[in-house]
């Protein structure tokens, strides 16, 4: 099962490095950040990048580098919590629906239709507005909408898998349907969902930043890239560094996740 280093596809390696580094920053932001990310220095408002502040300071005199680094914690959290609930719930429902087929599948089909017909962003915004802005509620909104996509993927895959002999073998061995579904089918059906999960993580960060832009995501003074970009938007000409560096961080992280997704897909494809 082990892959030698040179066998790992290049995208996976590169993406892994990017995301690995991101995770390190996310877990130990204080180790790398030179300043307190929320500390304001009224004497250093909007300073351009310098040795003291390699990425400059923002309009509150906060160190942009420190904020970008601390934002890793939040944005990696968004990537994780913004997807994991959809993922967990979606795969369970998907596996059950895919295995049961018939009426359950028909009803599920209609739900899927309804959810994908719903303007996604609008729904998320409406839900966040009902619950109140903030990351936790954003996660809830994402989960409410997002599980359908995972369920769809898993249901389709389980439908394929359940026709394979090992599923029948399980049933012929007298195993309960639950055991067959969750011990046998799901582990084999889950890979496309995992590939999607990785891409979805990148999308979650983007969505998080869009909601941050609308004031519905991370709350100040928390450093979050989307919010930072939105904050810096007014200073594009006079303080480009305020928005550009968080922008670079988003792009790099998104790139990392996508590369991992591509690489995983490749590995899993050849494995088959």
């Amino acid at each position, binding site marked *: 099962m082990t892959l030698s280093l040179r066998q790992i596809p290049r995208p996976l390696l590169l993406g892994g490095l990017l995301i690995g580094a991101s995770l390190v920053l996310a877990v130990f932001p204080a180790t790398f950040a030179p300043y307190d990310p929320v500390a304001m220095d009224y004497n250093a408002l909007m300073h351009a990048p310098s040795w003291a502040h390699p990425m400059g300071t923002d309009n509150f005199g906060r160190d942009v580098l420190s904020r970008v680094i601390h934002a890793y914690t939040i944005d990696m959290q968004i990537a994780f919590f913004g997807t994991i609930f959809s993922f967990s719930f979606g795969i369970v429902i998907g596996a059950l629906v895919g295995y049961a087929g018939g009426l359950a599948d028909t009803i599920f089909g209609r739900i899927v239709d309804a959810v994908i017909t719903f303007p996604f962003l609008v729904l998320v915004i409406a839900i966040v507005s009902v619950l109140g802005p903030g990351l936790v509620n954003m996660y809830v909104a994402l989960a409410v909408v997002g599980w359908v996509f995972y369920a769809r993927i898993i249901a389709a895959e389980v439908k394929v898998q359940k026709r*394979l002999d*090992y599923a029948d*073998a399980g*049933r012929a*061995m*007298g195993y309960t349907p639950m*055991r067959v579904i969750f*011990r046998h089918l799901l*582990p084999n059906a889950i890979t496309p969902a995992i590939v999607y999960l990785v891409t979805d993580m990148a999308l979650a960060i983007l969505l998080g930043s869009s909601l941050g832009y609308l004031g519905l995501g991370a709350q100040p003074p928390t450093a979050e890239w989307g919010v930072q970009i939105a904050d810096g938007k007014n200073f594009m000409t006079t303080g480009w560094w305020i928005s550009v560096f968080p922008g670079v961080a988003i792009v790099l992280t998104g790139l990392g996740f996508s590369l991992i997704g591509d690489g995983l897909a490749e590995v899993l494809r050849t494995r088959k």
Partner: protein
Amino acid sequence: MTEMKPLLSVQDITKAFPFPRDLLQRLRRQPGQAVHALNGVTLDIRRGETLGIVGESGCGKSTLARCLVRLHDCDSGRVLFGDTDIATLSGAARRAFNAKVQMIFQDPYSSLNPRMRVRQILTEALSVHRMRPAAEIPARIAELLDLVRLPMDAADKYPHEFSGGQRQRIGIARALAVEPQVLVADELVSALDVSVQAQVVNLLLALQDQLHLTVVFVAHDLRLVRHISHRVAVMYLGKVVEVGPTEALFSAPLHPYTQALLAAAPEIDPARRSRRVAAKGELPSPVNLPQGCLFNTRCPLAFERCFKERPALPASGDHRAACHLTQAEKE
């Protein structure tokens, strides 16, 4: 072989797979269509024997095999295990039945869960059926691997690390783990290379002697079926058209279909080449079955009655065929 009570008795079972009807069809009350996979199969399986089931693709061999282990519930008719109708079993009784009648599958690549090590696969079987206390499981696994002639280090590998033949042995070990009386082997070796086929067939023969197993051997390879079966049943379009002791059936086939089948199988002897086509035409669709004898579309000997009346398999006799012609001859 003396007539004694069969171990498994299949009594006139049918099985159809309906196509899903959508809302529109339901609204218009259109009748649903279905694949008629089994159309009245009657068969006895005797204790200790190897019953071969042959037939062309799509004739319902697998469906029958699945009905035997209750992977499918048949639409009508019964499958009796001893005296009990297996359709009535549930819960623990059903589990017990599943343990007694085990199935081994055709495709060595898909019949094992690719995410489980061999040890996990066997442990699961042993523990779910409470065959052994937890402490004895490793010893039993070693025993099983030995039984199917796999090395001990196989236990900690994943299925994809084995060749096809080895995988089939793992499948056999899994089935044997629950100490069954009957093994239903669906195309056990069809996917294997010739040289490996022989290994698995030899293993099966040895195990049968050693463990007194009853084997239902489903295959489309006539040579193979002939080699290992005591009795053979020939299926066509979801019906058993002929059943009989191996020798009798192969040397003197009664049904025109059996005859065509035997003629079509290429002889291993280059000297006995023929250029005559054994059977013309193709299998009719199992969705719209022909009227009368199911074989009448391809039968060179079909006569009027064959198009009107579907011949039944005679109720008694060691070697029987569902054919108007042979029945007429006998009479």
